[in-house]
Protein backbone atom coordinates (compact mmCIF):
# COMPACT_ATOMS: atom_id res chain seq x y z
CA UNK A 1 0.00 0.00 0.00
CA UNK A 2 2.95 2.28 0.72
CA UNK A 3 4.01 1.86 -2.91
CA UNK A 4 0.54 2.89 -4.14
CA UNK A 5 0.62 5.89 -1.81
CA UNK A 6 4.01 6.97 -3.15
CA UNK A 7 2.72 6.56 -6.69
CA UNK A 8 -0.20 8.90 -5.94
CA UNK A 9 2.25 11.39 -4.42
CA UNK A 10 3.74 11.77 -7.91
CA UNK A 11 0.60 13.72 -8.83
CA UNK A 12 1.83 16.62 -6.66
CA UNK A 13 4.07 19.46 -7.91
CA UNK A 14 7.75 18.78 -7.34
CA UNK A 15 8.13 21.54 -4.71
CA UNK A 16 5.35 20.01 -2.64
CA UNK A 17 6.90 16.54 -2.95
CA UNK A 18 10.34 17.80 -1.95
CA UNK A 19 8.88 19.53 1.08
CA UNK A 20 6.35 16.98 2.33
CA UNK A 21 6.48 13.53 0.68
CA UNK A 22 8.63 11.80 3.34
CA UNK A 23 6.54 13.28 6.11
CA UNK A 24 3.24 12.42 4.40
CA UNK A 25 4.35 8.83 3.83
CA UNK A 26 5.35 8.52 7.47
CA UNK A 27 2.00 9.87 8.69
CA UNK A 28 0.16 7.58 6.24
CA UNK A 29 2.05 4.57 7.61
CA UNK A 30 1.23 5.49 11.21
CA UNK A 31 -2.44 6.05 10.40
CA UNK A 32 -2.52 2.81 8.34
CA UNK A 33 -1.25 0.75 11.25
CA UNK A 34 -3.92 2.24 13.52
CA UNK A 35 -6.72 1.61 11.02
CA UNK A 36 -5.60 -1.94 10.20
CA UNK A 37 -5.89 -2.76 13.88
CA UNK A 38 -9.52 -1.60 13.80
CA UNK A 39 -10.56 -4.15 11.15
CA UNK A 40 -10.56 -4.49 7.38
CA UNK A 41 -13.75 -2.57 6.71
CA UNK A 42 -12.34 0.54 8.39
CA UNK A 43 -8.98 0.04 6.74
CA UNK A 44 -10.52 -0.14 3.25
CA UNK A 45 -12.56 3.03 3.92
CA UNK A 46 -9.39 4.71 5.20
CA UNK A 47 -7.36 3.76 2.11
CA UNK A 48 -10.13 4.99 -0.21
CA UNK A 49 -10.36 8.30 1.69
CA UNK A 50 -6.56 8.66 1.60
CA UNK A 51 -6.28 8.12 -2.16
CA UNK A 52 -9.21 10.46 -2.76
CA UNK A 53 -7.54 13.01 -0.47
CA UNK A 54 -4.30 12.73 -2.42
CA UNK A 55 -5.98 13.32 -5.78
CA UNK A 56 -7.96 16.35 -4.56
CA UNK A 57 -4.95 17.59 -2.55
CA UNK A 58 -2.75 17.35 -5.66
CA UNK A 59 -5.36 19.22 -7.71
CA UNK A 60 -5.41 21.94 -5.06
CA UNK A 61 -1.61 22.09 -4.96
CA UNK A 62 -1.42 22.56 -8.74
CA UNK A 63 -4.27 25.05 -8.97
CA UNK A 64 -3.11 27.10 -6.00
CA UNK A 65 0.43 27.19 -7.25
CA UNK A 66 1.95 30.35 -8.63
CA UNK A 67 5.25 29.69 -10.37
CA UNK A 68 8.02 32.19 -9.71
CA UNK A 69 7.94 33.03 -13.41
CA UNK A 70 4.44 34.44 -13.05
CA UNK A 71 5.30 36.51 -10.01
CA UNK A 72 7.86 38.78 -11.55
CA UNK A 73 7.79 37.79 -15.22
CA UNK A 74 11.27 36.24 -15.00
CA UNK A 75 12.21 32.85 -16.35
CA UNK A 76 12.66 30.47 -13.38
CA UNK A 77 16.25 29.99 -12.24
CA UNK A 78 17.60 31.79 -15.30
CA UNK A 79 16.79 28.84 -17.58
CA UNK A 80 16.67 29.42 -21.35
CA UNK A 81 13.20 30.71 -22.27
CA UNK A 82 12.20 27.74 -24.46
CA UNK A 83 13.25 25.33 -21.69
CA UNK A 84 11.22 27.27 -19.11
CA UNK A 85 8.20 27.23 -21.44
CA UNK A 86 8.58 23.49 -22.04
CA UNK A 87 8.64 22.89 -18.27
CA UNK A 88 5.52 25.05 -17.90
CA UNK A 89 3.74 22.96 -20.59
CA UNK A 90 4.56 19.77 -18.64
CA UNK A 91 3.33 21.35 -15.39
CA UNK A 92 0.16 22.69 -17.00
CA UNK A 93 -0.69 19.27 -18.44
CA UNK A 94 -0.15 17.55 -15.09
CA UNK A 95 -2.31 20.18 -13.39
CA UNK A 96 -5.06 19.71 -15.96
CA UNK A 97 -4.81 15.91 -15.67
CA UNK A 98 -5.05 15.96 -11.88
CA UNK A 99 -7.97 18.39 -12.03
CA UNK A 100 -9.75 16.14 -14.53
CA UNK A 101 -9.20 13.06 -12.32
CA UNK A 102 -10.49 14.95 -9.28
CA UNK A 103 -13.66 15.75 -11.27
CA UNK A 104 -13.99 12.15 -12.54
CA UNK A 105 -13.40 13.28 -16.16
CA UNK A 106 -11.25 10.31 -17.04
CA UNK A 107 -11.38 10.68 -20.84
CA UNK A 108 -10.12 14.26 -20.50
CA UNK A 109 -7.45 13.04 -18.06
CA UNK A 110 -6.21 10.53 -20.64
CA UNK A 111 -5.89 13.29 -23.25
CA UNK A 112 -3.83 15.43 -20.84
CA UNK A 113 -1.75 12.40 -19.87
CA UNK A 114 -0.91 11.86 -23.57
CA UNK A 115 -0.06 15.56 -24.02
CA UNK A 116 2.03 15.51 -20.84
CA UNK A 117 4.12 12.61 -22.20
CA UNK A 118 4.75 14.53 -25.42
CA UNK A 119 5.62 17.70 -23.49
CA UNK A 120 7.97 15.71 -21.24
CA UNK A 121 9.74 14.20 -24.25
CA UNK A 122 10.12 17.69 -25.73
CA UNK A 123 11.55 18.89 -22.41
CA UNK A 124 14.01 15.97 -22.36
CA UNK A 125 15.27 16.86 -25.85
CA UNK A 126 15.67 20.53 -24.91
CA UNK A 127 17.60 19.57 -21.77
CA UNK A 128 19.89 17.47 -23.96
CA UNK A 129 20.32 20.42 -26.33
CA UNK A 130 21.35 22.75 -23.48
CA UNK A 131 23.35 20.06 -21.68
CA UNK A 132 21.19 20.31 -18.54
CA UNK A 133 20.61 17.21 -16.45
CA UNK A 134 17.25 16.43 -14.76
Amino acid at each position, binding site marked *: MKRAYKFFLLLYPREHRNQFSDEMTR*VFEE*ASAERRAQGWARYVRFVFAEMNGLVT*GAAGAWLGRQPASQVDGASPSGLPQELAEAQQRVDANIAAMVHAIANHQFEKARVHSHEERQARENLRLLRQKYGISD
Partner: protein
Amino acid sequence: MRHVATKTYTPDPKPLTEPVLLILTSLADQPRHGYALIQDIGSLSGGRVRLSTGTLFGALRRLLEDGWIERFEQEDTSRQKQAYRLTAAGRKQLQLELDRMKQLTRAGITRLRAGEAV
Protein backbone atom coordinates in the same frame (compact mmCIF):
# COMPACT_ATOMS: atom_id res chain seq x y z
CA MET B 1 22.07 53.51 11.10
CA ARG B 2 20.50 50.20 10.10
CA HIS B 3 16.98 50.41 8.84
CA VAL B 4 14.80 47.46 9.77
CA ALA B 5 11.60 46.98 7.79
CA THR B 6 8.74 45.67 9.89
CA LYS B 7 6.09 43.53 8.24
CA THR B 8 2.60 44.54 9.32
CA TYR B 9 0.12 41.72 9.65
CA THR B 10 -3.34 42.22 8.19
CA PRO B 11 -5.83 39.58 9.37
CA ASP B 12 -7.73 37.67 6.70
CA PRO B 13 -11.40 38.70 7.04
CA LYS B 14 -12.71 35.53 5.34
CA PRO B 15 -14.08 32.74 7.58
CA LEU B 16 -11.66 29.84 7.99
CA THR B 17 -12.40 26.45 6.46
CA GLU B 18 -13.09 23.66 8.94
CA PRO B 19 -9.74 21.85 8.43
CA VAL B 20 -7.83 25.12 8.89
CA LEU B 21 -9.82 26.06 12.00
CA LEU B 22 -9.23 22.61 13.49
CA ILE B 23 -5.50 22.67 12.70
CA LEU B 24 -5.06 26.12 14.27
CA THR B 25 -7.08 25.03 17.32
CA SER B 26 -5.02 21.88 17.67
CA LEU B 27 -1.79 23.88 17.60
CA ALA B 28 -3.07 26.53 20.04
CA ASP B 29 -1.75 24.82 23.19
CA GLN B 30 1.39 23.08 21.93
CA PRO B 31 3.38 22.18 18.80
CA ARG B 32 2.30 18.96 17.09
CA HIS B 33 3.54 16.82 14.21
CA GLY B 34 1.37 15.46 11.38
CA TYR B 35 0.05 12.26 12.92
CA ALA B 36 -0.55 13.91 16.31
CA LEU B 37 -2.56 16.60 14.49
CA ILE B 38 -4.77 13.99 12.80
CA GLN B 39 -5.41 12.26 16.12
CA ASP B 40 -6.04 15.48 18.04
CA ILE B 41 -8.40 16.82 15.37
CA GLY B 42 -10.33 13.54 15.51
CA SER B 43 -10.65 13.99 19.26
CA LEU B 44 -11.47 17.74 19.07
CA SER B 45 -14.31 17.05 16.65
CA GLY B 46 -15.67 14.12 18.66
CA GLY B 47 -14.57 11.68 15.95
CA ARG B 48 -16.58 13.52 13.25
CA VAL B 49 -13.57 14.83 11.29
CA ARG B 50 -10.78 12.56 10.18
CA LEU B 51 -8.38 14.51 7.95
CA SER B 52 -6.65 12.61 5.16
CA THR B 53 -2.95 13.23 4.73
CA GLY B 54 -3.70 15.00 1.42
CA THR B 55 -6.04 17.47 3.11
CA LEU B 56 -3.79 17.93 6.14
CA PHE B 57 -0.59 18.66 4.25
CA GLY B 58 -2.37 20.82 1.67
CA ALA B 59 -3.62 22.97 4.55
CA LEU B 60 -0.23 22.93 6.33
CA ARG B 61 1.50 24.10 3.15
CA ARG B 62 -0.88 27.06 2.79
CA LEU B 63 -0.61 27.91 6.49
CA LEU B 64 3.19 27.90 6.24
CA GLU B 65 3.04 30.10 3.15
CA ASP B 66 0.69 32.54 4.91
CA GLY B 67 2.94 32.61 7.97
CA TRP B 68 0.19 31.39 10.33
CA ILE B 69 2.25 28.39 11.43
CA GLU B 70 5.95 27.58 11.41
CA ARG B 71 8.12 24.51 11.64
CA PHE B 72 9.20 23.80 15.18
CA GLU B 73 12.63 22.35 15.80
CA GLN B 74 12.70 19.48 18.28
CA GLU B 75 15.71 17.48 19.34
CA ASP B 76 14.34 14.25 17.88
CA THR B 77 12.94 15.92 14.76
CA SER B 78 13.68 14.07 11.56
CA ARG B 79 12.69 15.01 8.03
CA GLN B 80 9.87 12.50 8.38
CA LYS B 81 8.55 13.79 11.71
CA GLN B 82 8.25 17.53 11.66
CA ALA B 83 6.41 19.50 14.33
CA TYR B 84 4.47 22.70 13.65
CA ARG B 85 3.44 25.54 15.93
CA LEU B 86 1.29 28.65 15.70
CA THR B 87 2.91 31.99 14.94
CA ALA B 88 1.64 35.24 16.44
CA ALA B 89 -0.26 35.87 13.18
CA GLY B 90 -1.87 32.42 13.35
CA ARG B 91 -2.86 32.95 16.98
CA LYS B 92 -4.43 36.31 16.09
CA GLN B 93 -6.32 34.76 13.16
CA LEU B 94 -7.65 31.95 15.37
CA GLN B 95 -8.73 34.45 18.01
CA LEU B 96 -10.61 36.50 15.38
CA GLU B 97 -12.36 33.41 14.07
CA LEU B 98 -13.38 32.26 17.56
CA ASP B 99 -14.72 35.77 18.33
CA ARG B 100 -16.71 35.67 15.09
CA MET B 101 -18.13 32.25 15.97
CA LYS B 102 -18.95 33.38 19.51
CA GLN B 103 -20.88 36.35 18.13
CA LEU B 104 -22.74 34.12 15.68
CA THR B 105 -23.53 31.58 18.42
CA ARG B 106 -24.94 34.33 20.66
CA ALA B 107 -27.10 35.69 17.84
CA GLY B 108 -28.30 32.17 16.96
CA ILE B 109 -29.24 31.34 20.56
CA THR B 110 -31.06 34.65 21.00
CA ARG B 111 -33.13 34.05 17.88
CA LEU B 112 -33.91 30.44 18.83
CA ARG B 113 -35.18 31.63 22.22
CA ALA B 114 -37.22 34.37 20.57
CA GLY B 115 -38.71 31.76 18.22
CA GLU B 116 -39.60 29.43 21.11
CA ALA B 117 -41.29 32.29 23.01
CA VAL B 118 -43.69 33.01 20.12
